[in-house]
């Protein structure tokens, strides 16, 4: 139980610390204390957890997160995870101490420590995860915080670019890892690490093994900067040095190694594993070491050296040998100690001299002797000098290379040579680092006068260098037990016997070491002149510029390629969008019909009535003509459209549907008038000369074919529908129930206000909203300049025009009102109803506008359309709500006869009130549209200002009412 809390605390404490740090004011000392305490506490928790392992336990913490998905929050610490947890938290403590002195007082410290601690928590999450999805979860978080830390100096372009490159590569790799883990979970049937580790055989035998392996390795290789993904690491050096020391040498880049080692028992042991990882590791090892020699920036040199060492570890892991595995784990720890201390040393030099350029630095041994000693020891460990930790793991590497070299393949065969070569290069760059900076004549043209750093800034380096020496001299006594626990956690019973001794006698590996030392020194002497010439770039490999390649790829993918593709796949043009819609619908219907075919039904057709046939022929011809004229002759098209509407109206009458006919007629009138009012403000369209060009003709032909096919197809479908016997559906119910239960003999009206009153409520809302939208849009409308001119009819005394009609129209007004009320009241039983009546009344107003003009009407009559609309909607919805008051569902109608004594009985249905609401809304909405359209003429005569700027929105609006 206690163990579980230790683990949880080890992951959560850093995050808590991060949150607190982010909220604290920028006080460097306080923040450093906080961060240091958090890191120390985390280290203590790891120590307590490890004590439990020592006692033979396996500390774990489990919390159901989303158990249905196989996702749990589970932490577990075995020896291997413990070793990494020690590294993460231990080096974390040292880094915090170092950063306290490294960071400038002007730097915004809270952000730095918050990100650093959050990174530490994420890293703890990665190494302690007992569930692979959870591991991916923390994995991506490490990428994220690495991104934020690299980009900490956001005002520096290199930091931004480096951060972005790092995130792109590592987060992309993280996605691959995610996919790989999903496949792994599919194979195993669980994402729990224990379950996965127990099914190695099943995994390696599964057909999906190779994809899973490749994806997981992609994740590991991107994170651990393996060739060809290594290029992000040197650019990540734009981060503050504590970050480089912590993330980019000791922990983050080791996450890939951690993962490969963690899954080594189940994924390794196959040819695929070796064939992928060995070449990658080998190239990374040699390339990194070679390029490192030619770096002038100390941090860049260390970065490439890190790449090289990561390649070495990968190579060891690839060998499918238990002993190589031991060496890999051991070297991971050793590398973390000496490389972190070297980074910190480089940071000290940068901090105290103002530059990291090896070409400018020289003779620092005199001004900062103590730092020089420390760096010397650490660099010697890096070069593999005996009695230091780097030597021991390198010896193990050599002996492993020799062991596998007995295999027949060429790749195996060249390993010893390659290992020696890499070691020669390592000695050379280590020499360059030390000799270039600390030896030679002192210089005095540095940006700052060099001196020893503050004492506590050196402490972290001292601790790490001390570890290098102790482990180098007494390996079994110091790192031995820890390493043993780690290796046993991975290999279990298969753990080979190995010896951590410094001295193995005179053997081939020792000879290789000596060759490497001698060769490295010789190579450095050979290259000395060239290096000091200060040339940029790497000889022979100058063309391999990772950054440029990356940027070119990025520009290609995210700019040229993507834009070209978007241009190919998309359009902004409305015509094409509509064409695509029609074509897709046509295609969809065709595809649905293809398997079965479309057959007409077997209903007997009635004889053709010549009158109706003529009406339809005229209506159809008008519709086609309207489409033909629509582009350049809008008025003609509108008139033709009206004729089609009339044909439809007549059809309704012929089919004995007076309600529909009446509605259609009124809608035709109102829409035509409103459209005509709108047409007045449209800019003219003039047929251009180019419209007869062959290409345009072809395009129109295409459009014609599409239109014809779609129209004919729809006609065919309609024919097939109408010749079928209607299914026994709901329509019969309407007829039988309309009077009995709905209280009305006009079935259409009962459907509208009762059976499907909810639809009607929605539809009147639509009408109201459309009116509001038109209002909102038009009150800001400025017509095109050429439409502003006042037409002849409105110039001078307008009253001469339409004198007789206008008098008639005015006289008709009361009649129209009466008819409208009549239509409203009879609606439930006879043709009529709220919708029709509302339109009728609106026509009355409309006629007045036509007769008298806007000013005249508004001087004599005040209509408040918004009030009408709101009132109508409230009436309609209120009828619905009223039913709920009586415990009935919304819109339940009440029906009774009111006994008016001698006057007889008056049918009273609550639906009538609903219909009144419909009436008010329809009237209000129609009139609102009419008024805003009519006001255009009033407004534009006053002024025709230039088109307003986009944001000039606050000027008083011309209200459509009052």
């Amino acid at each position, binding site marked *: 139980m206690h163990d579980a809390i230790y683990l949880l605390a080890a992951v959560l404490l850093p995050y808590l610390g991060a949150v607190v740090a982010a909220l604290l004011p920028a006080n460097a000392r306080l923040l450093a204390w906080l961060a240091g305490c958090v890191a120390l506490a985390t280290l203590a928790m790891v120590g307590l957890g490890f004590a439990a392992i020592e006692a033979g336990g396996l500390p774990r913490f489990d919390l159901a997160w989303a158990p249905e998905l196989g996702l749990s929050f589970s932490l577990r610490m075995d020896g291997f995870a413990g070793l990494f947890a020690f590294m993460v938290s231990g080096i974390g403590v040292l880094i915090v101490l170092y950063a306290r002195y490294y960071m400038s007082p002007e730097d915004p410290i809270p952000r730095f420590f918050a990100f650093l601690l959050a990174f530490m928590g994420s890293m703890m999450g990665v190494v302690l995860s007992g569930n692979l999805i959870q591991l991916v979860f923390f994995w991506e978080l490490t990428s994220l915080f690495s991104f934020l830390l690299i980009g900490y100096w956001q005002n520096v372009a290199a930091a931004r670019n480096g951060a972005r490159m790092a995130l792109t590569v590592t987060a992309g790799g993280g996605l691959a890892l995610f996919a790989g883990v999903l496949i792994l979970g599919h194979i195993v049937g669980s994402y729990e690490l224990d379950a996965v580790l127990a099914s190695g055989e099943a995994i390696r035998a599964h057909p999906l093994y190779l994809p899973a392996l490749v994806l997981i390795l992609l994740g590991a290789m991107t994170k651990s900067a393996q060739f060809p993904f290594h290029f992000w690491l040197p650019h990540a050096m734009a981060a503050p040095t504590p970050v480089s020391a912590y993330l980019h040498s000791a922990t983050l880049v080791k996450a890939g190694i951690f993962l490969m080692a963690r899954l080594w028992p189940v994924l390794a042991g196959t040819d695929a594993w070796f064939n992928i990882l060995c070449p990658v590791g080998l190239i990374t090892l040699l390339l990194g070491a070679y390029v490192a020699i030619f770096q002038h920036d100390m941090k860049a040199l260390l970065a490439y050296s890190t790449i090289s060492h990561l390649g070495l570890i990968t190579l060891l892991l690839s060998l499918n040998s238990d002993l190589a595995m031991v060496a890999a784990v051991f070297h991971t720890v050793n590398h973390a100690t000496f490389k972190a201390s070297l980074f910190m040393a480089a940071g000290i030099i940068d901090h105290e001299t103002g530059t990291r350029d090896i070409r400018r630095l020289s003779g620092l041994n005199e001004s900062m002797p103590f730092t020089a000693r420390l760096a010397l020891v650490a660099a010697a460990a890096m070069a593999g000098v005996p009695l230091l930790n780097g030597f021991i793991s390198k010896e193990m590497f050599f002996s492993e290379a020799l062991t596998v070299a007995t295999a027949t393949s060429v790749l195996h065969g060249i390993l010893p040579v390659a290992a020696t070569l890499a070691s020669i290069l390592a000695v050379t760059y280590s020499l360059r680092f030390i000799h270039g900076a600390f030896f030679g004549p002192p210089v005095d043209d540095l940006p700052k006068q060099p001196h020893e750093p503050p004492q506590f800034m050196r402490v972290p380096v001292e601790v790490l260098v001390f570890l290098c020496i102790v482990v180098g001299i007494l390996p079994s006594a110091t790192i031995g037990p820890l390493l043993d626990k780690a290796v046993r956690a991975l290999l279990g019973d298969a753990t080979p016997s190995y010896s951590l001794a410094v001295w193995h006698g005179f053997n081939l590996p020792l000879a290789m070491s000596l060759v490497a030392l001698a060769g490295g020194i010789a190579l450095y002497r050979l290259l000395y002149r060239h290096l000091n010439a200060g040339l940029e770039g790497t000889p022979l490999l100058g063309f391999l510029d990772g950054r440029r390649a990356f940027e070119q790829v990025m520009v290609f993918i*995210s700019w040229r390629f993507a834009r070209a593709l978007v241009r190919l796949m998309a359009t902004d043009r409305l015509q094409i969008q509509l064409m695509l819609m029609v074509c*897709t619908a046509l295609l969809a219907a065709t595809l649905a019909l293809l398997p079965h075919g479309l057959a007409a039904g077997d209903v007997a057709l009635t004889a053709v009535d010549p009158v109706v046939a003529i009406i339809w022929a005229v209506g159809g011809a008008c519709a086609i003509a309207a489409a033909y004229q629509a582009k350049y002759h809008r008025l003609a098209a509108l008139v033709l459209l009206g004729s089609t509407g009339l044909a439809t109206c007549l059809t309704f009458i012929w089919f004995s549907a007076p309600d529909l006919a009446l509605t259609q007629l009124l809608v035709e009138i109102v829409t035509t008038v409103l459209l005509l009012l709108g047409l007045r403000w449209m800019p003219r369209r003039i047929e251009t000369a180019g419209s007869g060009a062959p290409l345009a003709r072809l395009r129109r032909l295409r459009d014609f074919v599409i239109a014809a096919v779609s129209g004919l197809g729809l006609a065919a*479908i309609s024919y097939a529908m109408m010749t079928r016997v209607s299914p026994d559906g709901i329509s019969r119910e*309407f007829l039988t129930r309309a009077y009995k239960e709905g209280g009305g003999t006009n079935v259409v009206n009962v459907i509208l206000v009762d059976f499907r*009153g*909810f639809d009607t409520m929605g*539809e009147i809302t*639509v009408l109201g909203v*459309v009116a509001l939208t038109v209002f909102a849009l038009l009150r800001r409308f400025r017509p095109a300049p050429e439409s502003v001119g006042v037409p002849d009819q409105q110039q001078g005394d307008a009253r001469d025009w339409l004198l007789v009609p206008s008098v008639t129209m005015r006289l008709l007004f009361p009649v129209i009102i009466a008819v409208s009320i009549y239509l409203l009241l009879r609606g439930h039983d006879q043709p009529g109803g709220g919708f029709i009546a509302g339109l009728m009344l609106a026509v009355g107003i409309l006629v007045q506008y036509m007769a008298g003009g806007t000013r005249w009407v508004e001087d004599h009559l005040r209509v408040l359309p918004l009030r009408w609309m709101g009132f109508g909607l409230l009436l309609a919805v209120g009828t619905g709500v009223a039913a709920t008051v009586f415990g009935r569902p919304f819109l339940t109608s009440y029906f009774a006869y009111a006994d008016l004594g001698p006057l007889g009985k008056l049918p009273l249905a609550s639906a009538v009130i609903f219909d009144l609401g419909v009436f008010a809304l329809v009237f209000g909405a129609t009139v609102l549209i009419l008024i805003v359209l009519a006001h255009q003429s009033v407004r534009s005569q006053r002024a025709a200002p230039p088109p307003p700027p*986009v944001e000039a929105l606050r000027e008083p609006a011309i209200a459509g009412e009052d």
Partner: protein
Amino acid sequence: MNGWEQHLAVAPVALPLIVGAIMVTLDEQRAKLKAALGLASILGLLGIAVFLAIRLHVGIGPGIAVYRLGNWPASFGIVLMLDRLSALLLIVTALLGLAAQLYALPRWQRMGAHFHALLQFQLMGLNGAFLTGDLFNLFVFFEVLLAASYGLALHGSGVARVKAGLHYIAVNLAASLLFLIGVSMIYGVAGTLNMADLAARIPQMPAANRPLLEAGAAILGIAFLVKAAAWPLGFWLVPTYAAASPPAAAIFSMMSKVGIYAVARLVLLLFGTGTGASAGFGGTWLVAGGVATIAFGAVSVLATQDLPRLAGANVYISSGTLLAAVGAGQVGVTGGALFYLVSSALAIGAFFLLIELLDRGRDIGADVLAVTLEAYGEGEEEDEEDDAIGVPIPVTMAILGICFLCCALLLAGLPPLSGFIAKFAMLNALLNPAGLGKGPALIPWSGWALLIALFLSGFATILAMTRAGIRNLWATEDGAVPRVRAIEIAPILMLLLVCIGMTVAAGPVMRYMQAAAATLHAPQDYPRQVLGRTR
């Protein structure tokens, strides 16, 4: 649910209608009263939606509640059909509505006429579409929400809005026409508009009528795909959403989900498992269309320069993912997709709101530079040695930066936020159709296609969001801090907090989603509940 509680089912439609109607009658000057009314209405909607969801989820039975409007029997009256999915979408709609309302208070409500009323009608349309159990009534509510969205898209006016808005109106009117054609064809052969009744009738439909039914369903589907902005029917989306005012765009992020909802509802109900000869109709096409939409979205995300269009392009990815997930036709995938729907709708909504705040502090054209600079190199490296001192970030920028980061993580589906959980839930179900560890099952090609599409689109989103974020938050030259009111950041934080909450409570939330998906995948339950009889 009985007693007064049953009427709550209609409240999500009636309440905004009443409030909207009252607002219409109020004068322009009563802006404060309108705002207060709107806020109260949306808070009420949120409360009702949460209440309904809880009642449905913890109650016994199949989790379907039916409300018969006008007290008419189901087959010919209109019914509201409330299940976990509807309740969930009501909550998300209310959340986005609340965010839009709050955000609009300091500035945007004054930028045009009738903002508050239009927002209420928009919510009414959305809620009605999610609740209705009747095909024609669905059309009506589509019209309500579209009509309101026309107004909201044009809110604030300006050349760009009017141009994009008129395209939007034209496309959607044409799509509504297709909707009507599809509905009438289905009605013509099935004789009913009630969805549950349709589900009961379709298995018994004579073979001669089946082609017409399927053709009708296909045309109807195209109408929905237009609203869902599936490729190649959704080119209207980015210009419209990018030009719309931020609060409108935030609520629009839910609107594009209505098309998805309709597809999911109808495909699973009418052509789901055990629905006779037409079972599985259209599934393959949905997956193909969805994957194509994801691909198009990923490419547009990469090719996009300015932030509003970037947010719009993310809607494509979201839509495509959901369509393909629905097309996969597996309970688990649907459950994950519902989680994804909520997460991505909230994230995109928050992102639209955030963009304008970032925009305020920035010189025009900065994001044009983001891509072009990349293409032509960023000049020479600056002299870093002088510059390597961090600049403190003002609190406002820090909060905006965190919000941006959260949006980016959510949209790209990266940990630790709900986008990751959503993606994982879908992928886990795709790879393990029978459930994790429930024996080997063959993964169909569509599963692999969706998997690859999800990963590649996620990567594209990372690239695009990083580029935009660096350019807008890190590389600001003048360091001008936008003037932002707390009430404008609050809604963004609220939406993001919900996403964070969904991550922490992934277990219970996912159980709700899975239960909702299970209900959807048991189409035979609906006729039983709605018609009161077994088929």
